[in-house]
């Protein structure tokens, strides 16, 4: 009798296990299928798309890619996006680390108050600052320039917060020892704090990079000329040329996705760490 019960419970466990496996695989398939369709459609000739619903295109062609590239100066978009993003990441890392260092290890009047003021800024959604920011850019004649994309995002409050938390953990003795050795304040920052913050900086870098790459609303408002567009914007703008012409639209999308996808697949671990941290904002 006991053996029977054992076998029954074992089968029950196996059955639940099997069910979970199936569900997980089904979930993964649900995530992958749309992308497969995207690639598949990108290779289907426009004439054949209506009525053809096979996963593997019957008459694969590079035509759509050619059309997409004719209309979209993709290389230019990539250049713009890369330029803007790298600048933002660079300045972000530098200034957030600097500010984080100041708040973590230095003493100055109203330190707590200023920090709280900065934290409060974190709670303000970007859209609330949209109109005034636009007007500011207008006043400085920066509408429709790449500079206008960079300036509001030179650093982030989240970054400052993150850096402060991590720099706080650096033992004060190290800093005191450096002071005794005659390092200047900036020297301490550059030679001690920065190297020790490698992991956090990498995380912040990735977080900022992805955020900047995917930014849509701000470029949408700021940029109107083709030569200054970033990828998200360019894709949307020219996607409108391909309404109902899903072949070239999907081709454009594929071309826009692949580099970042490759980047992500290579640096998977850092991305996961970055996303977990950013999701746990403040923990």
């Amino acid at each position, binding site marked *: 009798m006991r053996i029977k019960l054992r076998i029954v419970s074992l089968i029950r*466990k196996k059955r639940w296990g099997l069910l*979970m*496996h199936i569900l*997980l695989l089904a*979930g*993964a398939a649900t*995530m992958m299928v*749309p*992308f497969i*369709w*995207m690639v598949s459609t990108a290779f289907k000739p426009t004439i054949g*798309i*209506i009525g053809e*619903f096979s996963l593997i295109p019957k008459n694969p062609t590079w035509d759509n890619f050619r059309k997409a590239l004719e209309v979209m100066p993709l290389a230019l978009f990539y250049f713009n996006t890369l330029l803007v993003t790298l600048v933002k990441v660079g300045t972000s890392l530098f200034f957030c680390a*600097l*500010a984080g260092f*100041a708040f973590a290890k*230095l003493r*100055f009047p109203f330190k707590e108050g200023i920090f709280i003021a900065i934290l409060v800024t974190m*709670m*303000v*959604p*970007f*859209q*609330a*600052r*949209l*109109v*005034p920011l*636009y007007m500011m850019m207008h006043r400085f004649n920066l509408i429709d320039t790449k500079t206008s994309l960079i300036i*509001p995002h*030179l*650093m982030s*409050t989240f970054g400052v917060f993150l850096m402060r938390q991590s720099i706080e953990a650096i033992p004060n003795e190290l800093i005191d020892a450096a002071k005794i050795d005659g390092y200047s*304040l*900036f020297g301490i920052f550059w030679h001690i704090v920065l190297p020790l913050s490698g992991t956090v900086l990498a995380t912040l870098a990735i977080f900022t990079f992805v955020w900047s790459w*995917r930014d*849509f*609303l701000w470029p*949408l*408002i700021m940029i109107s000329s083709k030569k200054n567009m970033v990828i998200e914007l360019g*894709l*949307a703008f020219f996607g409108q040329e391909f309404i109902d012409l*899903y072949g070239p*639209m*999907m081709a*454009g*999308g594929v071309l*826009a996705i692949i580099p*970042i996808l490759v980047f*992500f*697949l290579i640096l998977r671990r850092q*991305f*996961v760490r970055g*996303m*977990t941290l950013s*999701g*746990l904002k*403040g*923990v």
Partner: protein
Amino acid sequence: MLYIPIVSSFIISFRKYSLLSSSNPFVGLKNYIKVIQDPSMAAALKNTFYYVFFTISGATTIALALALMMDRLKFLENFYRTIYLIPLMISMVAISQLWLFIYDYITGPLNYFLGLLGIAKQPWLTSTKLAMPAVIIMSIWTLIGKSMIIFVAGLKNIPEEYYEIAKIDGANAFQILKDVTLPLLKPITLVVIVVSTIDAFQVFTQIYVMTEGGPMHSTTVIVYEIYQKAFLYFRMGEASALAYILFTIVFILSLLQLRVLRTKY
């Protein structure tokens, strides 16, 4: 001693803002009243709450369920994590265009598959009744990964001992789930919900690409209206009023988030 903070503060001051609640000339609360009276803005408020509620409940539940299963099975964990994260890394515009295609009435694969199951073709994005649900489904698809990795991290933090004690006490799998795992996940779940909610209130890109506010304002959302009013119609005052409302909502939610974090410790 003082120059570094000054440099930092100088840069930080780029982020200070001045909010105009009414345009010049001063019109008092007129803009706020307009927000409620204007059909598209009122619809935006309603739609956004509707969107947030369903997207967050859907995405969080599914993410939690998946995380629990992944934690149990351990098999292919990295693969699943990567797969679910992909929509969060890549261009939202591209994803929106993809789903625009999927939802297409005639050439979209979704209607094709429904047809195979004997269900009639649906005019997803062109129907006032179906457009918002369609956007919600697509958003859930996109967002599952974000909550999921946090849940996975949280689950990993639960010490094995808790499970062992429960097993010794004779608990079966359901009881372990109900009385050990879920209560221990509560703080993380709350954080996830609040943070995702704040994000969800700011939805914009998919609306812009897929529906442009939807057939008859059925899918317009707060940020989309702000964009329209401010930059297409140049009605900065109204847009700012709406933006301020968004700010208030997000601010309250952020305070909630702080409260939740504090009780965690």
